[in-house]
């Protein structure tokens, strides 16, 4: 089973460049998330989506954009890369019912901005 797939795994960007991190899930989950994890830190929520066509800001949304045109896909866009965006990015999904549910993570994307 594929689960949550994110690409690319590694990327080096120059300051000011743009890129999109792709994320797709095949579990028909309604919720999808993007987190970033800086070295030695926990995960911080960037954006999340409760279903196709609906997105919302998390804790650290500045410098990022997302869209959710289908249930399966939730790409994360960096418009003008900055060194502060050097981090590991995790996409995740869950089937949220009343109390919440297990979050399934992708394997991570290591991004360096130089």
């Amino acid at each position, binding site marked *: 089973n594929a689960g949550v797939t994110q690409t690319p795994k590694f990327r080096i960007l120059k300051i000011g460049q743009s890129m999109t991190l792709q994320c797709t899930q095949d579990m028909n989950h309604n919720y999808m998330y993007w987190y970033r994890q800086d070295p030695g830190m926990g995960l911080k929520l960037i954006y999340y989506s409760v279903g196709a066509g609906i997105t919302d800001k998390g804790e650290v949304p500045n410098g990022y954009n997302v869209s959710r045109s289908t249930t399966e896909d939730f790409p994360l866009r960096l418009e003008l890369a900055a060194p502060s965006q050097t981090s590991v990015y995790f996409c995740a999904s869950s089937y949220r019912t009343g109390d*919440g549910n297990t*979050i399934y993570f992708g394997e991570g994307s290591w991004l360096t901005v130089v």
Partner: protein
Amino acid sequence: EDKVVQSPLSLVVHEGDTVTLNCSYEVTNFRSLLWYKQEKKAPTFLFMLTSSGIEKKSGRLSSILDKKELFSILNITATQTGDSAVYLCAVNDMRFGAGTRLTVKP
């Protein structure tokens, strides 16, 4: 502002020891608390807790939630070197603590 605080931030023990990891939280509209283990890559799910006082167990790991005092603990008994990892606590799917880095020495 919602907050999740884990303690200790790091812990070094020897094989066979028992450890207790703590997670306290202040969030609006609590729904669930989740524990994850993170080794080199993505976090892997351990437990989801929604009700106070009900212990969840999986082998040598167990966890319990106290919704009155707003905390949860994760216990690991008879630790092994394979338990070395960062343990993350998350509340309502979205707010993670900084994690506790556990190192188990042979």
